[in-house]
């Protein structure tokens, strides 16, 4: 038998040291008290604040594009009459925007009011829930 095996055999003969029977319970009590103080929370990739910022920026961009589009003389939908702003070809930029606004114009006012009402309801519901929680 090699020296390593001999030492291994002797050390394994030694009575094993056991922790107290309630060791696991004690550890879990501490784990649970730590968990109560600092529970693992699911962190969304984009926070609520982030969503509000994204929404605001999207709204701002749409408004700017809408205003710019409205300020252009009639018929600028065609690329040939487009102006250039700081080297940006506005016609190319406005072509899809114009198409989108055209489509939006085709939406019936009843549907638009309905959609706006749903958004407003959701917004007031969120506001109400937040106020109650406080």
């Amino acid at each position, binding site marked *: 038998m090699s*020296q*390593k095996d*001999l*030492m*291994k055999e*002797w*050390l*394994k*003969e*030694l*009575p*094993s*040291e*056991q*922790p*107290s029977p309630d*060791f*696991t319970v*004690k*550890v*879990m009590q*501490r*784990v*649970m008290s*730590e*968990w109560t103080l600092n*529970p*693992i929370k*699911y962190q969304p990739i984009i926070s609520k604040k982030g969503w509000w910022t994204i929404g605001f920026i999207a709204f701002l961009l749409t408004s700017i594009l809408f205003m710019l589009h409205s300020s252009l003389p009639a018929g600028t939908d065609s690329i040939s009459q487009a102006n250039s702003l700081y080297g940006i070809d506005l016609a190319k930029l406005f072509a899809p925007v114009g198409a989108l606004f055209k489509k939006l114009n085709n939406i019936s006012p009843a549907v638009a009011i309905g959609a706006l009402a749903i958004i407003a309801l959701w917004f007031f519901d969120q506001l109400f829930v937040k106020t109650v929680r406080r």
Partner: protein
Amino acid sequence: MEKKTDEYYIREILKGDSGSFSQLVEKYSHLAFSLSMKILNQREDAEEVAQDAFIKAYNSLSSFQSSSTFKTWFFRIVYNTSISKLRSRKNIEVKIDDIKISDAKIQATESAIGQLNTNDRQKYLQIGLDRLEPDERALLKMYYYDDFSMDEISIITGLTVSNVKVKIHRSRKKLLQELRFVLKDEIISIL
């Protein structure tokens, strides 16, 4: 009941099921306690340190990288926590590490120990181990008792593999020297 892997329980804990941690505690409590016991040589301290190590592991579970096994990662925490506790104790006795035993005497001691009955061997080995430095006891335990490889012990202790090799060799030699001292030369010559 089907046994799940450590990685499975870790995933469950990270998902928010803290109860799954009890499975890891059950599995490693004995090994963690016996390692800290080897270093601290005091039951109360060893139990406290083992508990602290589990809490530390639980709190830093999200930083666990599966490049090493959970067992090795956790034992590094147990080892470091035990060493920190040891350092915090006042009046640590520093022994001069002086190994003078010759190879011939090592063989004679090994042969003598081999001829003892199990109870006597256990008794003398325990005395011999108690006379070693805490880190020497821990290294011998990890290598000979827990079957950790040199590489794993290197990760746990933070020592280089070659340093671990040298330290284990020296610790084994020192244990045999202490055993020779305990058993006395006369008994060894009679055996």
